[in-house]
């Protein structure tokens, strides 16, 4: 994908997570290379979302380590993870429904803003300059994701497919190094899926953002990812190129065979 040799951006090493009697993740290790699009697949309840939640700091693993850009950050809180350059979207859209699309995306910039309460309140001097700079960045994202027409629309009034796109925009506003997408195409029609695929590829290509996504639509996974990891019952059962994973017997048994793809 990228001309430089891919290096390990994120190293997940022997992660285990247990909810009561349920072993959600069992000794999962995964290496995400810089600049790639990795898809995490698996049947329902395989632990995909738990893995994303561990990476983004929502859950802390019972065992194992996570290294991001070479540093251990297994036990960081979500906001610290975000500050490191990891942004995410949610399986069920989590936008501020009463706020405009523009304001929603601006919240993605919060971590980049250096505030002084007084200056912000007066909207004066550096505060104003900073606001304009962030607004300009957000406008680039609006243009990139082609959502100019809904800039001022309250997010809650948008159809689902567009809400997903706005969520992606908010995640991009944080200028992440690693973008985690939890089922970005769930509930979309074919056309919306195609659009979303194009945006994901473009984000990866234009900004060089590394992307880890969870997706059920196997044709989408095979089309856009460079690297696929398959989970089943909390264990990683395969890891490789899309072609390798598609032909892996364990994967076929666990997942593909069931859904007749």
């Amino acid at each position: 994908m990228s001309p430089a040799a891919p290096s390990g951006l994120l190293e997940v090493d022997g992660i285990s997570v247990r909810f009561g009697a349920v072993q959600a993740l069992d000794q999962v290790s995964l290496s995400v290379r810089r600049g790639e699009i990795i898809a995490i697949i698996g049947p329902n309840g395989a632990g995909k979302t738990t893995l994303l939640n561990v990476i983004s700091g929502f859950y802390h693993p019972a065992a194992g380590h996570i290294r991001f850009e070479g540093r251990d950050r297994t036990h960081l809180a979500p906001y610290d993870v975000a500050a490191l350059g990891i942004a995410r979207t949610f399986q069920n859209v989590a936008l501020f429904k009463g706020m405009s699309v523009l304001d929603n995306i601006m919240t993605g910039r919060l971590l980049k803003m250096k505030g002084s309460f007084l200056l912000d309140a007066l909207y004066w001097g550096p505060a104003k300059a900073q606001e304009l700079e962030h607004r300009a960045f957000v406008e680039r994202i609006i243009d990139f994701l082609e959502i100019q027409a809904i800039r001022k629309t309250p997010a809650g009034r948008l159809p689902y497919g567009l809400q997903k796109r706005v969520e992606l925009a908010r995640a991009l506003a944080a200028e992440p190094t690693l973008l985690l997408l939890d089922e970005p195409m769930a509930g979309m029609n074919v056309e919306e899926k195609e659009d979303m695929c194009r945006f994901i590829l473009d984000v990866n290509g234009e900004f060089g953002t590394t992307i880890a996504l969870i997706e059920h639509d196997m044709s989408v996974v095979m089309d856009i990812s460079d690297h696929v990891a398959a989970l089943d019952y909390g264990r990683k059962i395969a890891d490789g190129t899309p072609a390798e994973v598609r032909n892996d017997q364990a994967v076929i048994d666990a997942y593909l065979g069931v859904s007749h793809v």
Partner: protein
Amino acid sequence: MLNPGDDTFPKLALRNAQRLPNKVAIREKDLGIWQAYDWTAYAEQARLTALGLAALGFARGDKTAIVGDNRPRLYWAMLATQALGGVPVPLYQDSIEKEMQYIVAHAEARFAVVEDQEQVDKLLQVRAQCPGLEYIIYGDARGMRHYRESSLLSLDDLQARGRKFADEHPGYFDQEVGKGAADDLAIILYTSGTTGQPKGAMLSHRNLMATARNAIAQEGLTSAEEVLAYLPMAWAGDHMFSYAQSLVTGFTTNCPESADTVLHDLREIGPTYFFAPPRIWENILTSVMIRIDDASWIKRRMVHFLLDVARRVEERRRSGRPVPIGDRLLHALGRVLAYGPLRDNLGMRRIRIAYTAGEAISPELLGFYRSLGVNVKQVYGMTESSALISIQKDGDVKLDTVGTPLPEVEVRIDPSGEVMYRGPGVFLGYHKNPEATAETLEGGWVHSGDAGVFDRDGHLRIIDRARDLGRLADGTIFPPKYLENKLKFSPFIREAVCVGGDRAFVAALVNIDLGSVGNWAERRGIAYTSYTDLAQKPEVYELVRQEVARVNRSLLDEGPLAGAQIRRFLLLHKELDPDDQEITRTRKVRRGFVAQKYAALIDALYSGADHVKVEAQVTYEDGRTGTVRAELRIRDAEAFAAGMAR
């Protein structure tokens, strides 16, 4: 009339850069902000683009295909091409590959300047069939990092090459612009014919400039106008309004952010000069009405009341009758409370002149905007006439004509009923298509393909496509579609089919509108069981009879059409339906099919009978077929003798 200093569009751009250096020439909403370019920047951008093309070996006479939404960079690419003695060929941005291939190959375009990846992809697909196409130049690089085609470069790259070329060839640009002359080919605009391949109408600088100037003089346009460029660049109208007239007067063209934001951008810009086809006028009205109906009861009542006042006042003014004092006071109140705020809300507060054209607009729709104080007028024109033939003059507006011919334009009605015109805007011919040229262009006169009549006041009225025009047995002109449209302007009539070719008189098969006629019947306590039952009520016949009389009376004012009044009609037992192949999916009557299917009904209309039995196959939604039997009444319509109008 044209002096050699400014007889081509590139010369005009240079003149504007000198005379109006800091006047805004074009704006584009980009990243949420309106970016403005003055005439100095406009000319400079075109110059750099031209020099870049020259660096790639652009020769005089070369063609540049231009594809994309309305963008300043694409207008500059047009100007750049013309500056080098080349010919821009704009294409519709939603063309599919096959259409694009035909035009690029037929025009023998050597260069293409396009907006983005979408258009690049289409051109790359058809390259093999377009051997003449050497370079594809794009504005927006997004998504094309991995494209390795050597013939592909960005506009920024092109301009960088232009800068270098300028250093090596000082004076080249001015020299090339100086070589241009008024009668050079300025542009080829391909028109999508309803049949066969598109034809490329060739227009010279003189054609476009003379037409632009005549319209500017008649309409009183100045360099202060603001226009919104949102209709396709490949369409003659946009080329006239956003390019030719802008360059001639120096007024400002505004390019919206995207196709989805047009109505929003309209409001931000507040144009003074605006064009929209009937479809868009209608959409805007619908969105307004929805918002009014969402308002509180009192506001809603007030707005509807004041809109009624406006309609009455406008009608009286138009017909030159005095307005009663009460309405005058209410109208003044309405200006403050309703019309002004509404216009402002629509982005139409500053409009001095607005046009509609393309297809028939309902008088009610046009009347609505005019009564709000938006000066919407009908224009008539086509690509072959440099976009404009006639415009309604200010203060001489009728709701159902296309106005009077522009200065220097002559219009006459051929004995066959076809509108013919000649004037300085008449095109040079179709590119590489002498047969079509010969068919259309005859001794300087152009066959418009439209049938029309002049009314008493010298207004041109377009009634139909010339080839759809029929004749009654005595030779009277019979325009079926025109009569049907007039009938359909009634809220009670959904569809109508007029017959009369080679018959003694015109008769009509009418479909009532179930919604509005049903509503009307309920309010009068008329019970009915089904569509067929409702359609055969004597009261409904009387209702429709009045509508037909209205149409007949209006024809008295229309010269030869007075003889085409509808003498007899019947109400059909079922709605014309695309599933039954009676109308197309776009709701055009399939005349031949209907005439055949309803031959018995048509015969009955001419037999003098007062009813006819019908038995018809219908296709239900689930695909099953069934038979409907009914007895349909036939009624005479009220006809009027010429001379007893109104």
